[in-house]
């Protein structure tokens, strides 16, 4: 038998998309053609590798925020699609804007608000605790970071979640920072970009 089949037909054979008679014809052909057999074996092998690789995602922990967003809409319908909470506009108006975590932290303000400085050097765990709290904690659930020498404790609690019309996600959060000499509460707003949470704005209580 000299009949050859195109790769489209062999691919359809691999996927079980041919009728029974055609399947038999292809199988007979495969017995006599090494190239076709190689094609089929490689196609099956590739499919198995794809499944093995992507099935890992099925066993990953689903971010709580994702579940929370889907379920929480039933309580407060439409909240996530609101453009921007009025309180956040106000917050944005009165506060300093930080570009990215760690960019200067809470620098002294214009005089109306008390200056506050973090212990030096900048706490390495700060970014980590905020990232984790924003990504995994339900609104209202705190996450804590403590410096190795117990010189500083940071507690981050997401408060609300929003999304604007462009699809950007925002979370309001409250952060308590305690050092050996003082304790301060700060409210802030973070947004999610490329899988990372960045501080948009913070303001003092």
């Amino acid at each position, binding site marked *: 038998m000299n009949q050859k089949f195109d790769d489209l037909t062999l*691919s359809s054979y691999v996927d079980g*998309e041919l009728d029974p008679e055609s399947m038999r014809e292809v199988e007979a052909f495969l017995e006599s053609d090494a190239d076709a057999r190689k094609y089929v074996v490689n196609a099956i092998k*590739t499919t198995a590798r*794809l499944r093995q690789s992507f099935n890992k995602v099925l066993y*990953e922990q689903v971010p709580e925020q994702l579940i929370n967003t889907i379920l929480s809409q039933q309580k407060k319908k439409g909240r996530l699609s609101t453009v921007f909470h009025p309180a956040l506009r106000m917050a944005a108006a009165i506060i300093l804007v930080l570009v990215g975590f760690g960019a200067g932290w809470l620098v002294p303000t214009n005089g109306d608000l008390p200056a506050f400085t973090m212990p030096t050097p900048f706490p390495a765990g700060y970014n980590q605790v905020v990232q984790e709290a924003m990504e995994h904690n339900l609104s209202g659930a705190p996450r804590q970071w403590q410096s190795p020498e117990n010189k500083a404790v940071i507690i981050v609690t997401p408060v609300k979640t929003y999304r604007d019309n462009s699809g950007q996600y925002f979370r309001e959060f409250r952060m308590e920072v305690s050092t050996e000499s003082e304790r301060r509460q700060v409210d802030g707003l973070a947004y999610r970009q490329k899988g990372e949470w960045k501080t948009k704005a913070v303001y003092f209580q």
Partner: protein
Amino acid sequence: MGKVVTRENTLRYQLVGLIPHLRRFARSLTKDSGNADDLVQEACERALKKLNRSGEELHLKNLLYRIIYNRWIDNLRRRKTRSAKLIVLSEQNQERASDHHAGNRLDLVLDLQTALDKLNDEHRAAIMLIGVEGYSYAEAAAVLEVPPGTVASRVARARAKLGELLYKRRYESFRAKGLKKLRKKNESEI
């Protein structure tokens, strides 16, 4: 007092159950877990709106895959428009780089993820739905909103490309003229 069981509540819990599968599909498109999760969340919100509005009994998983795919393609188009100039420049750079390394190119065997990234988005979505999700061509066609024959063609092209990249094989022998065309299952629908 227990929660009131409404159609919407039921749908929400069904959505939560589907999240791992949705993340898997979205991850294959975006190649990035953060963007994939954003895409999944957006798809769930859109699906809920659509289902609440229509009141129809739709196939939830297919609907979500369709939304994820369409949103992703829309995002890509927007991004391409914004960065067209940049893409042209980077392609020129790539050409120079590939000329430079032409001698080594044939020996290159790529890992699966890199090879998959080199597929175009339509081919990648097709091979994912068929190979990983286990969809039939007809089911994938409903998700991608193309005829089943187009799905078959995209899957075959994806396999040919992956074969070249992963196993250094080319399949010209199957593309010769005068090949026999076999009847596909459900061909009348195609």
